[in-house]
């Protein structure tokens, strides 16, 4: 196998590309690919080199997504002690409330403004929705530990959880698309004068 045949995971590469401004879309993936092929793959082997690559992509994701992640976790923390009904929901499920929609739309707007790409907004909204859903279940598991075991007693609960996750993700993506469309329509926030 030649050096140039060593390829990092396609999904991680696609995720990385979706997070970068057009001006960085060659240089940053090129840097990571160079390190992957020249150093990580020979020294770590294919699996650990892929894990290294994914870790680097997630570090780039975190740098873009952290305000959205903080916003959704803050919303969850504020929401938990409040009575039901203060934040209207389309259906009785986590992650589909009015305030969730606002956070997802903002995440979409923020992401697409950050890079000038529509896809970044959609990715930001999806990540935010996933984190919001996970936070809800962590809270539920901490307050009612028996919930963790219930899917193993009644496997159908896995189907319910998967449905709720799909609902939350779909809702997040839909709201994110609206925000990303607005963000893409307006001029992007970055304005670096780079000599390229």
């Amino acid at each position, binding site marked *: 196998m030649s050096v*140039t045949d060593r390829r990092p995971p396609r999904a991680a590469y696609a995720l990385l590309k979706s997070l970068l401004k057009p001006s960085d879309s060659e240089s940053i*993936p090129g*840097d990571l690919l*160079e390190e992957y092929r020249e150093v990580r793959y020979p020294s770590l082997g294919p699996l650990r080199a892929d894990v290294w690559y994914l870790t*680097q992509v997630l570090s*780039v994701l975190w*740098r873009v997504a952290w305000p959205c992640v903080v916003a959704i976790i803050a919303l969850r923390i504020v929401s938990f002690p409040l009575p039901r009904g203060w934040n209207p929901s389309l259906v009785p499920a986590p992650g589909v409330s009015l305030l969730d929609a606002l956070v997802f739309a903002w995440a979409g707007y923020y992401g697409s403004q950050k890079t000038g790409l529509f896809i970044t907004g959609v990715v930001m909204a999806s990540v935010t929705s996933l984190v919001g859903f996970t936070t809800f279940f962590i809270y539920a598991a901490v307050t009612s530990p028996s919930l963790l075991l219930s899917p193993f007693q009644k496997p159908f609960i896995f189907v319910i959880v998967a449905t709720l996750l799909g609902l939350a993700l779909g809702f997040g993506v839909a709201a994110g698309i609206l925000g990303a469309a607005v963000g893409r329509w307006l001029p992007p926030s970055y304005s*670096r004068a780079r000599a390229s």
Partner: protein
Amino acid sequence: MGQFEQAVLVALIRLGKDAYGRAILNEVQERLARDVSAGAVYATLERLEAKGLASSKLAPGTAIRGGRARRYFAPTGAGVRALNDAKSATDLLWRGLVWPLRVRT
């Protein structure tokens, strides 16, 4: 200017004309003697550029990068002045003290 920004700017000076993303990441890791994520370094480089402390330009890529361009960074005059100020401030802070400090018992 934060410590990490200083570390990245110093790396640009040490690397000179070879200061591109991967080399900067490795240099910062070596100097700080810890693992540093690519995201942290790229975000810092972006911030330094936005502050006018560094500039960059693209150059052709090599085969091992799949032909992808390299972005080379260099400190601006303002960046060098900011580093000098940071070093002077640190030196001033330590002036008169004997290094290493001794723990009083």
